[in-house]
Each structure stands twice: as structure tokens, then as C-alpha cells.
């Protein structure tokens, strides 16, 4: 299961001093800047007194003046953005893509990647402990009470797949990235398997860090509050004309969540992490080498601590020719965990190599083809009641894919893709994808898509043995089949006004072979095994908008809605009910306000609503995060953030699977020099 930071978050990445005091209202950019507005800001729940201060501080700034008085070096740090917040390329992408920009992250004041993912309206992020989160898109987010975990997303950090092969879920405590160095996070809801890779059944999360050319100099970020303390330090430089590098270190201690009575849940944790990135070449040929290592300690309520550690190293070469773009990448990743008292320890080694090439064929066809091979090698120290048999394996996951994007006319294009994936348990599978897009103007794109994706079986599905005392309660079987989806999507993205953009996508997903729990036979209940006896449909929509009310205030609403109509196949046990596939809220919504106030003050607030969970039941909740920041000068920013301000504590998943997230406040200073 996922995990990560506390609700108590606060922090932020830091746009190395991207100024909030820029020129006049920006226009649509003639370029590819997938990024955003230059702001930062946040406040706390007690907006009133602060607001009074702010109102008193109102003054005039001459934005045009600011740019021309900046040095060349400072200009190089100005973030450029369009009101639409999407790059031109994205504006036309025939998929439901939300981009969390660097500045969105900084301005929200979040302090961890899972918290940053809450900024994407098409994701549902649920905190269950100080270090654990459930992340899901378009429903079927799992139901821990039924041992069904959110396992239908692909998550990548700079091209490195970080969902765990053990059960296809996400260990949120392994996701840390120095937030200041994140360029953007692309969140694709819907099937993304053909281009992005394995497990992209309901969505893809693509975390992309900045080139080291853009992170030169020193950066220090420290913060502390009632739920956490942290410090981030980075230093970057260049070596010669055509290369740059950075090194960083970060550490944090996050407090425990709470139990319903307000007492501590005992699950606090701390982590230290370091890493580097170096880039050579800027234009046609570039080489990137990067790596990270970390170690964390997680407390438990009454038992001994558990530890996690990991390291990774990645190299990527890219060549941009006039007619082709080639990318070759290889990485190694190690993730280790030692459960309380040494129980339930595991180590996973991942080796991955891939190649991708994009070529223009004539003037109308852009062909992307490639392939890759991944080797997972893991070993598990079994606990007495939860065993993997065998305890260790080496598994390979291979794929080849091709996608042709055909420009049928200036306004209409089609993308036909096919990936063949070879997984260790079920062999080769075909994953086709067809997309049509129609862009009657630069401000309107409509698309339709049909695709097929699978969630490959994992050791948890095929190898697990669970015992109660000496009774074998559940014994997984090797013939577990992949869970499958045929997905249909219709979406539109538009910019009806210069100041307004929106994106709406409706989906209809047909699932087959979803995992169920079945009794051993008609005469014997145990051992249970994982069957594939559920199927059915989910449908719903993802939507969001961005409305620039004026040159200093932006409002961004988001709303997602899903209905699930799942049933058991004839002869199935029906144990645990259809809700085992996902204890999902029928809707969730966010409203984010971003303000650039005078005197380099920014105020950002996000109100979020999550509807009730069906079973185990949890009432709907609404929460508010606010951050107020003041950029004292080009180098320094002070901020205050309050998270989950509306209640002393709230649960996002009912006990015992979820703890209560307390209200938290944090103060932070960011310095770049």
C-alpha cells in the first residue's frame, strides 16, 4: 500500500525565484511551456487577521518595470506561462491530461509528492497513515478491508517506473522527490498503456524533474510545524559549456496521525534522501544521468520500528534529429523494507532498458515505435501468517509497441497504437489504442478514444498464502488471469475566452476478470483463493477549469464523478461483495484560488470535497488548505501554511485501515542563491 507524508504537510518546492511580479497579463504562448504561473503562496486558516494586513499592504507595482530592471540571470529564472496553463502540445492531446506545474506545487505549499498529487482533479488521493496514501483515478481504487489495493495506475519518476511489482500498488513512502526540482507532473486519467507502459489501466502519473541546467546555484528550504519538520538543500553548477549538474539532500520527520479520540496513532516517520542529476548537451544530443538513495524509519503504535531503504540510477540518451527523435534509457532500482522486528522484509531489484524512436513518415504520419525489457528480482522474508511461495523470484516484463499518428487534415488526426506486452504470469497480450481528435480551432479540441489495457498478475495474486494459526486460510493460485479493461472515452478541451479554459472527459470502462475471493471447492471453504469472477462497467467524468478572473486572481475548479456497476459471474462466491474492487466515493471536487497580491505576497487556498465511502462507510468530508507567502527579495521567501483546517482531525479511510489526519500548520523559508 501506498504511503507517504503527513497531512500535516506544508512545504513547497520553490521556483528558484520565479517572480510573482511579472509583466502584464500574459497571452497564450507560442511555445511549449507546460508550466505555469509564477506564484507561490499560502496562508492559514486564520485568514482574517492576515487578510487585514494584506489589505493594508495594497500598493501598486509596475509590472513592466520589473522585467526590464532584472538582470539577465534573473530573467533566465522567470517562469513563462500562458493563461491556458497548458502547452500547445497539450492543448491538442487526445487524452484527459492534467498538468500539475512547478508553480502549482510551490504555491500550494505541499511537502510531499502524494500531497502534490491532490492538486490533480482527476486523481483521488487518500491518506491512510503518516506515510501511506491510496492513489486512484476513475474509481476501482481498491478496498484495503478486502485486501484489494489500489493497483491500476502507472507512476513514473523521470521515466523510472515506481509502482511495486509485488502487488502493482504504490508505496508512497518511496516517492519523494525534491519538490523544488520538479518541473511538472502530468496526470493522465484513462488508459495510457500503449505509450507509457505496463499497468497504465486507469491512469498514468508522470513526474518530470528539471534539467540541471535550470537548477544552478544553491537552494535551501526549511520548515517546521506541528506535524513535521524538514529541510531540503541543493547545489547545482556547470562543468564546461555543455553540461550541468546538481546534488541534493533532504530530510524530514513527520508526526503520527491520530486515532479517533485524538491520541496518537504512533505511525510517525522520518526519512533522509540524497541524489544527483547531470545533463550533457542541450540540443540535438543530450545525456542525462541521475540517481537517488534514501533511508526511512517508520514507527508503529506498539511494536518495533520498520525501515525502508532504496537507491536508483538512471541514464538516458536522447537524439533529436530533423526527422526523428530517439531515446534510449536504462535504470536500476532497489527498494528494501524491513518490517517490525524483521518480519515481512523484502528487497526488490529492478533492471530496465528501453528504446523509443519517433520518426516522420512523409508529411502526415508520425510513427513512434520502441520496446523495452524489465527484470524484477525480489526476495521476501515471510511472516508466519502472510507468506509468498516461493519467497523469491526473477520476473521479466517485456514489450514492443508502435503508434502512428496520422494527420488526416489540418483539423483531424488519428492515432493508432498497438503494444504487445509479455508478462511472466500470462504471456503476451495485445494492448490496442485508437484515438481520433478534431480541433475545429486552436481553442477547441474534441477527442474520442477506445483502448484495451490489463493489470498483469503479480506475486500477490499468484503466490500468496495466508494463515490463521495453522489453518491455511487463503492460497493464491498460479492460474490467476490479468484483470482487463476495454475503455471508451469522449472528451473536449476548450478555451472559450482568453481567460477561461476547461477540460471535460466522459468515460465508459468495461472490466473483465476483476479479482475476487473464492472458496476452495463446493465442499470446502478454505483455503480461499483469488479468482477472476467479477466484471462490469464503470462510467463517469473528469472535469476541470481554470479561470483567470483578472491579472492577479485565478480560480480553478475540478470535479470528478464515477458510478460502478460490477457483478459476479454465475457460480462465483460473491464473497465480500462488489465493493471489494473499490471503496470509492461517487464524486470528489476541488476549488483552488491563487492570488498574487501586492508587495510580492501570494495567497493560495484549496477547498476539497470527497463524497461518502460506501463500505466500509465513511461520511463525506470537506477540507481546506491555505498558504500565504511573502517573497522578501529575489532570494528569500517566507510562508505559512495551514492544512486540513476545517476540523481538528478527519479520516479519509475508516479505521482500522485509515488513521485520522490532524489539522496542521507549518512555517517555511526558502532561499535561493
Amino acid at each position, binding site marked *: 500500500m501506498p504511503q507517504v507524508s503527513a497531512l500535516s504537510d506544508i512545504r513547497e518546492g520553490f521556483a528558484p525565484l520565479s517572480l510573482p511580479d511579472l509583466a502584464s497579463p500574459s497571452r497564450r504562448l507560442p511555445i511549449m511551456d507546460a508550466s505555469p504561473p509564477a506564484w507561490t503562496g499560502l496562508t492559514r486558516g486564520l*485568514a482574517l487577521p492576515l*487578510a487585514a494586513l494584506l489589505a493594508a499592504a495594497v500598493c501598486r507595482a509596475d509590472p513592466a518595470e520589473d522585467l526590464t530592471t532584472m538582470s*539577465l540571470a534573473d530573467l*533566465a529564472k522567470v*517562469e513563462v506561462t500562458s493563461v491556458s496553463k497548458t502547452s500547445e502540445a497539450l492543448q491538442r492531446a487526445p487524452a484527459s491530461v492534467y498538468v500539475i506545474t*512547478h508553480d502549482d506545487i510551490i504555491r500550494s505549499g505541499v511537502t510531499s509528492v502524494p500531497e502534490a498529487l491532490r492538486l490533480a482533479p482527476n486523481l483521488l488521493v487518500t491518506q491512510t497513515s503518516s506515510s501511506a496514501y491510496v492513489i486512484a483515478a476513475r474509481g476501482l481504487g481498491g478496498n484495503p478491508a478486502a485486501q484489494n489495493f489500489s493497483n491500476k495506475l502507472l507512476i513514473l519518476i523521470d521515466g523510472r517506473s515506481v509502482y511495486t511489482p509485488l502487488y502493482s500498488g504504490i508505496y508512497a513512502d518511496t516517492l519523494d522527490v525534491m519538490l523544488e526540482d520538479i518541473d511538472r507532473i502530468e496526470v493522465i486519467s484513462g488508459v495510457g498503456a500503449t505509450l507509457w507502459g505496463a499497468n497504465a489501466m486507469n491512469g498514468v502519473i508522470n513526474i518530470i524533474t*528539471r534539467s540541471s541546467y535550470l537548477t544552478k546555484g544553491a537552494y535551501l528550504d526549511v520548515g517546521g510545524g506541528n506535524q513535521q519538520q524538514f529541510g531540503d538543500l541543493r547545489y547545482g553548477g556547470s562543468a564546461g559549456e555543455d553540461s550541468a549538474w546538481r546534488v541534493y539532500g533532504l530530510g524530514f520527520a513527520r508526526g503520527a496521525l491520530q486515532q*479517533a479520540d485524538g491520541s496518537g496513532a504512533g505511525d510517525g516517520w522520518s526519512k533522509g534522501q540524497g541524489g544527483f542529476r547531470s545533463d550533457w548537451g542541450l540540443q540535438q544530443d543530450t545525456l542525462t544521468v541521475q540517481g537517488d538513495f534514501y533511508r526511512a524509519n517508520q514507527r508503529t503504535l506498539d511494536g518495533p520500528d520498520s525501515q525502508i531503504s532504496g537507491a536508483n540510477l538512471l541514464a538516458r540518451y536522447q537524439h533529436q534529429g530533423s526527422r526523428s527523435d530517439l531515446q534510449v534509457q536504462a535504470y536500476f532500482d532497489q527498494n528494501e523494507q524491513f518490517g517490525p522486528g524483521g518480519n515481512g522484509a523484502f528487497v526488490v531489484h529492478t533492471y530496465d532498458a528501453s528504446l523509443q524512436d519517433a520518426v516522420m513518415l512523409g508529411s502526415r504520419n508520425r510513427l513512434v515505435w520502441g520496446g523495452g525489457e524489465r527484470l524484477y528480482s525480489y526476495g521476501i522474508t515471510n511472516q508466519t501468517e502472510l507468506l509468498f511461495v516461493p519467497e523469491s523470484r526473477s520476473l521479466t516484463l517485456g514489450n514492443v509497441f508502435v503508434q502512428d499518428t496520422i494527420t488526416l487534415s489540418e483539423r483531424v488526426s488519428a492515432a493508432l497504437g498497438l503494444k504487445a506486452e509479455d508478462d511472466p504470469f500470462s504471456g503476451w497480450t495485445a494492448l490496442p489504442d485508437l484515438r481520433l481528435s478534431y480541433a475545429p480551432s486552436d481553442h477547441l479540441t474534441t477527442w474520442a478514444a477506445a483502448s484495451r489495457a490489463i493489470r498483469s498478475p503479480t506475486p500477490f495474486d499468484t503466490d500468496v498464502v495466508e494463515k490463521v494459526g495453522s489453518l491455511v486460510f487463503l492460497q493464491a493460485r498460479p492460474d490467476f488471469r490479468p484483470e482487463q479493461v476495454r475503455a471508451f472515452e469522449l472528451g473536449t478541451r476548450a478555451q472559450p475566452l482568453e481567460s477561461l479554459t476547461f477540460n471535460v472527459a466522459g468515460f465508459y470502462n468495461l472490466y473483465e476478470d476483476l479479482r475476487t475471493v473464492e472458496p476452495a471447492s463446493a465442499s470446502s471453504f478454505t483455503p480461499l483463493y483469488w479468482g477472476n469472477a467479477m466484471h462490469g462497467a464503470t462510467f463517469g467524468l473528469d472535469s476541470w477549469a481554470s479561470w483567470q478572473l483578472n491579472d492577479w486572481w485565478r480560480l480553478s475548479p475540478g470535479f470528478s464523478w464515477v458510478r460502478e456497476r460490477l457483478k459476479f459471474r454465475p457460480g462465483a462466491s460473491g464473497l465480500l461483495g462488489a465493493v471489494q474492487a473499490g471503496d470509492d466515493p461517487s464524486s470528489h471536487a476541488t476549488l483552488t484560488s491563487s492570488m498574487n497580491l501586492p508587495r510580492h505576497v501570494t*495567497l493560495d487556498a484549496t477547498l476539497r470535497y470527497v463524497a461518502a465511502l460506501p463500505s466500509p462507510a465513511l461520511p463525506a468530508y*470537506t477540507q481546506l488548505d491555505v498558504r500565504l507567502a511573502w517573497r522578501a527579495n529575489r532570494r528569500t521567501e517566507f510562508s505559512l501554511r495551514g492544512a486540513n483546517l476545517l476540523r481538528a482531525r478527519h479520516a479519509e479511510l475508516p479505521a482500522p485501515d485509515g488513521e485520522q489526519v490532524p489539522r496542521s500548520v507549518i512555517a517555511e523559508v526558502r532561499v535561493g542563491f
Partner: protein
Amino acid sequence: MPHRRQRQFRPRLAGLLLALVALTTGRASVAEPASADAVRAAYLYRFAGYIAWPDPGAADTPFVIDVLDAPAMARELRRILSQHVIHGHTTEVREISSLRELGDAQILYVAPGRAQVLRELRPERRSGLLLVTAEEDGLSDGSVINFLILDSNVRFEVSLAAAQRWGLKISADLLGVAVRVQRGQGQLG
């Protein structure tokens, strides 16, 4: 536990709304993300301070920037330059749509996608022109300074060979900020 949440938070939410209203009634003037053109225009203005032209021109003649096919850039430049002088000269921004209209400009800015027109330009006939482009292969088309978007920042690269061809001297301070400096290897350099 989660019930009663709404009731509890109403007063605080009302507080926040009040605060917002208080703020919006102020004369807030703020900032917003820059457009790439605004940043490029600011760069152009700043570049002038780091570059020596061979012929400074008479004091009463304006410093001219010709802008080829980039009306938004011309607008930004005019807005910025209306309040500034360059090397003691007043400034003039002219929009042109072909190189035939190129006058006595000190700077020629070429819209993204049009850099190949620079291949027709010959420094022998007219030196002292700073060529600026904003596209991937700008320098190979002969530009002196080429803007790039790297991640979400506007950066630039410089061809010293081209600068030399056009008789321009560029200070090391400017080169230090460039993301890449192409030296030598020019046809004449």
C-alpha cells in the same frame, strides 16, 4: 470523526470569504506569469547593454529594432522601450514582414519558425546587425542570439562566430548567462 464537519467549518469559511472580499476591494495590482514574449523583450532591452555595435550612429538617430512577423513581440518591445533609452538613443520598434523592408536597424528579431530567412542576409553588405531568433535551429540559420524555452524558462544561446561576422562585440557577462556559447567554426570566423 467526520460528521458535523460542515457545521463546524462554516464560521471559518465565512472568515476566509470576508478576507477575500477585503482584498479584492483593495487596489491590488498584481502580477501574473510572464508571457514568453514579455521575457524575450526584456532580454532584448538588457542585451543592448552588453553588446557593442560597430557604428553607434548619430546621437539624434533612434536605436531601431525591426521585428519580422512577430506582432506580439513588437507590442511588448514598444511597451517596455517607451520608458527607456538604449545607449543614449531613443528607440523605435518597426514591424516588417520581409527582409526587403529591413532598414538601418541595430537589432532584427525574427519570429519563431522564420529563422531560415536569415540565410539570405550577408554581413558584407551591412554589418552591425544583431540577429535574434527563437527557434530550435536558430543559430545554424545564422542567428547571433537564439532564444530557447528550457523547461519553463526563456533562455538563450549565442554564436560568437555570427557575432564576429556582424561586427558585434559581446561582453563576457552576457556569455556567462547564455545556456550555450557556440565559438569559432563560422564561415568567416
